[in-house]
C-alpha cells in the first residue's frame, strides 16, 4: 500500500492579517505559521492506517510552498510519515485550487498511490476544492468531510459529516481521495524520539515548474478586511445604569421598543 497525505502551511488564524502590496492576498509580515488544522486530522488518520497496515505500507507527505513549509513537513514526518516531498514554490499562495490540485496530481500519477488523505479545506483560502480536484484528475473515488474512517479488505468505510448534524456512511474502492474534518481524530503530539528520527528522513525537493502545466481557472481579485459597519459599543458601569443605557440604545437605534 502506498499512502499520500497532502498538507498545507497556513498562518495562525490569530495573526494580524494585512493585504499584501498587490492587494490580492495577505502580507506575510508578522504571521505565525502552522499546519492547516484539517490537514493535521489527515496526517493523524494516515499515520493510523500506516500503523494498521505495518511495514508493507509507506506513507509520503507532500506540501507545496517556499522553504518555510519544511516545518509542517517535519511535523508530519515526526507524527509518523515515512518520507516527504517538498514541491518548491515561492508563490504557492498565488495559485488557484485547480493549479494546486494539478501539481499534486502531477506528482501522484507517477506514484500509484492507493489512498490520498488531505484536509477538507484550508484555514486561509478555504476553497475545499483541492481534494476533490485531485481525485478527479487522477480518476480516484472520493469522499469529503470525513469524521470517521476505517479500512479493511481494500474498502474504505467513510463516515461523512452532512448538513444539519446528519452523518452519512460511504464505502469507497481504492484508489481513493478522502478529505478530513474536525472530529475525525485527535492528532498525536510528536514524541521526541520521533522528532529526532524525522530529521533523518528523506525530503525530496521538486521545483514546481516540473509539475505544473496548468493555467489558473479562477483569479483572486482583491483581499481586504470587511468594510466597517459601525463599531460595537462596550458598556461599563453599575447594572442599574447599564439597563438605562441599553434601553436608551434600543429605543434610539432599533425598532424593538417602538
Amino acid at each position, binding site marked *: 500500500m502506498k499512502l499520500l497525505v497532502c498538507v498545507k502551511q497556513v498562518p*495562525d488564524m*490569530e*495573526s*494580524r492579517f494585512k493585504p499584501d502590496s498587490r492587494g490580492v492576498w495577505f502580507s506575510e509580515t*508578522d504571521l*505565525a*505559521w*502552522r499546519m492547516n488544522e484539517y490537514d493535521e486530522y489527515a496526517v493523524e488518520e494516515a499515520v493510523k492506517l500506516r500503523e494498521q497496515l505495518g511495514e508493507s505500507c509507506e506513507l509520503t507527505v507532500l506540501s507545496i510552498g517556499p522553504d518555510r513549509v519544511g516545518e509542517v513537513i517535519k511535523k508530519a514526518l515526526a507524527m509518523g510519515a515515512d518520507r516527504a516531498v517538498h514541491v518548491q514554490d515561492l508563490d504557492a499562495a498565488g495559485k488557484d485550487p485547480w493549479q494546486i490540485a494539478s501539481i499534486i496530481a502531477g506528482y501522484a500519477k507517477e506514484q500509484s498511490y492507493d489512498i490520498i488523505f488531505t484536509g477538507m479545506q484550508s484555514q486561509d483560502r478555504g476553497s475545499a476544492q483541492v481534494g476533490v480536484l485531485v481525485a478527479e484528475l487522477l480518476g480516484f473515488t472520493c469522499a469529503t468531510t470525513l469524521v470517521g474512517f476505517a479500512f479493511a479488505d481494500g474498502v474504505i468505510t467513510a463516515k461523512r459529516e452532512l448538513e444539519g448534524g446528519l452523518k452519512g456512511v460511504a464505502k469507497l474502492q481504492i484508489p481513493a481521495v478522502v478529505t478530513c474534518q474536525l472530529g475525525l481524530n*485527535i492528532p*498525536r*503530539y*510528536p*514524541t*521526541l*524520539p520521533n*522528532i*529526532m528520527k524525522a530529521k533523518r528522513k528523506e525530503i525530496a525537493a521538486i521545483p514546481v515548474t516540473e509539475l505544473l502545466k496548468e493555467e489558473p481557472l479562477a483569479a483572486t481579485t482583491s483581499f481586504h478586511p470587511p468594510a466597517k459597519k459601525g463599531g460595537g459599543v462596550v458598556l461599563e458601569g453599575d447594572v442599574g445604569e447599564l439597563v438605562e443605557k441599553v434601553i436608551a440604545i434600543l429605543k434610539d437605534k432599533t425598532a424593538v421598543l417602538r
Partner: protein
Amino acid sequence: MEVTREIYWNIGHGVVLSMYLLSFAAVAVLLWGFWKRLPLYRIGRPLTRTDRYEERVRRLIDDVIGQEKVARVRDGGLPHNLFFWGFMVLFVGTLLVMLQADFFTPLMGVNLLSGEFYKAFSLILDLAGLVVLVMLAALFIRRYFIKPEGLDTKDEDFIIHTLLFSIIVTGFLIEGARMAATEIIQNPALANFSPIGKLVAQLFMGFDEPSIRSSHKVFWWIHFALVLGFFCAIPYTKLRHIVTTSANSFFAPLEPKGSIDTINMEDETAEQFGAAKITDLTWKDIFDADACTTCKRCQDRCPAYATEKPLSPMKLIKQIGEIAETTPEAGLCETVTEEVLWSCTTCRACQDICPANNEHVNKILEMRRNLTLMEGSFPGDEVRTAISNIEVNANPFGLAFAGRAEWAAGLDVAVMAENSDVDILYFVGCYASFDRRNRQIAESFIKICNAAGIKVGILGKEEKCCGEPARKLGNEYLYQTMAQENIELIKGYNVKKIVTTCPHCFNTLARDYRDLGLEMPVEHYTTYLERLLKNGSLSLEAKPFQLTYHDSCYLGRYMDIIAAPRYLLAKSGGRISEMEQSGYDSFCCGAGGGRILAEEKIGTKISEKRVAMALETGAPTLVSNCPFCLTMFEDGIKTGGGEGRIVVRDLAEIVAERLENATFTQSRR
C-alpha cells in the same frame, strides 16, 4: 581519695571478650543489612553525589548533629531532637566508659572518669537519660493518643518504642542496683550526682546485697542484649533512618535550588527521555525511599494533597522504593498514575521541609518528561492547545505574537530592535504582555523605572515565552526551543542586566538558561527595586494600608527572596498581617508546574484555599509578586466567595501608586 566508679562492677572483666564478640557480631549484622540493600540502589542510573566533599560534610554536621531541618517543625521535631541529643550523650558516654575500661586503664593506666569530671559525667548522663525517657513518652503520646492526621503507625513503631524505652529503663535499673549496693552506702555525697540513679536505687534498698547483685547482673545482660538488638534492627526497621537520612544530608544536591537536568537534544543516540521505568531514575531516587522517615511533613504542606488530589509527596517517595524492590520492570508512570504526576505544582514545599533531604520535585519532572516527550501525553486538551499555542505564537494564549508589545504603547520604554541603549532589559513574560489584568504589572514596573530614571528596553514581538510552563510539564524540547531563541536574541543586543516581573521567567532566565549559555545578571523586580530604594534612586510616599502578603513559591522557596518584598511593602506604608503559612512555608497558589495552563479537575481549588487563608487575616488586600499568583487569586476570590472582602494586587502596582514626583513622559518610540 578521688571519686570514681568501678567499671564492670559485679560483672567482672571476664565478660570483655564475649561482650566485644557479640558487639562485633551485631555491627556485622547492621553492616550486612545495608550491604544487602546496595544492589537495590544500583538499579538506578549513576549520579555523582560525592564531589565537593567539604561542603557535603559541613551540611552533614549541620543536619545530623545540629538537627537543623528536623527542628523546623516544633511538633515532633522538638521531642525528636531532645531525644536525639540525649541519646547521643548516652552513646558517647557509653563509648567513653568502654575506652576507659578497655584502653585507658589497661594500656595507659590513667583514669579519665574520676574526680570532678566523673561528677559532671555522672550528672550529664543521668539527665540525658531522663530527657530521652521523657521525650520517648512525649513521642509515644503523640503517636498513640494525639494521633496527628496522616501519621502512619505500624506495628514496627510500637516495637521500636518498646525497645528504646526498655534500653533506657534497664540502664537506669543497672545504675540503681549498682548504687544501692555501692555509692549510696559508701559515698552518699557522690550519689547526688546521679539523681535518677539515686531515685531508682530506692527500689533496691532493703534487699540484701546478693539479691541486688544478682538482679544487677540480670539487668545488665538484658540491657546489653537490647542494645545489640537495637544495632541489629537498624537496617531492617525505621531505625535505618539513622544511617540513610544522615547519608542523604551528604548526598543532597549542591546545585542551586530548582536545578533540573538540561537534556542534551543533540544526542541522536538517546532513545529514552525522562523516566519510563525505575531504572531511568537515579540510585538517589531509590535511596530517597529509604531515607524517608514518613514524618509526613511534605504531605502536610502539599497543596495538591490539601485539596483532595491524589498526590502525596511522601507516598510517592515510598512508592518509588517499593517499585524498585517489587516490580522494577513495571511502567513507572502507569504505576504512579498520570493523575498523581500532573497534580504537582512544583511548589517545592515538600522538598523544602523534608528533614531527609529527599528530592520530590525532580522525580515528578522526570516522569512527566516521559509522559510528554515519549508518550505525547498532556494533563488535558486545554494544555495540548496551550502548548501548541506556545509552539506557534510563543505564548500560551495563542494570541498573535506580533501583539506582544501592545501593552507598552504610550509608555516610555524602548524596543531593543529599535534602540538597545538601555539600562535594563525588561523580560516581560507572556502574562504581563498579553493578559489584561497582568498588563498592569508591566505598566506599573515601567512607571517605577521611569520615576527612578532607569532606561528600560523590551524585546517586543521578538520576545518568546521563557518556556517554563512547558518545561515543568515535561516538555524539555519546547522549552529548549524557546530558550535558545530567546538567548540568541538577547545575546545579539548589548544587554547589561535583565529584570523580570514574573518569578517563573526569573528562575528560568537566572538559573535554567545558564545551562544553555545565557550569562548576564538576571533579577526579579522586587530585589531590583529594593536596591533602587536603598541607593536613593527611587523614593516612595508611604500611604498606610493593611495587607497580607503571599510569597510566591518561585521567589520565596526557590530564590530565598522573602525580605525584599516586605521591605518594599514597609516603605509603601503597608502593615502586613502575615498568613500562618508564609515565607518558606508559603502555600502555593496552584499555578506552578505548568498548572497555570491546566484546568483543576480533581478536588477543590488550590487558589480558593489560599484565598481563604488570606481572608482569615482580615486584611482587605492580598499582595503577590507573580503574574501566575495574581491570575489564580483573581479567580480564587471570585469563585471562593472573596469578592467584596479582599482584592489582590501585585507589589509593582502598590509601589507604582506611591511614586514621589513621578513624571510620566510619553513614549519616545
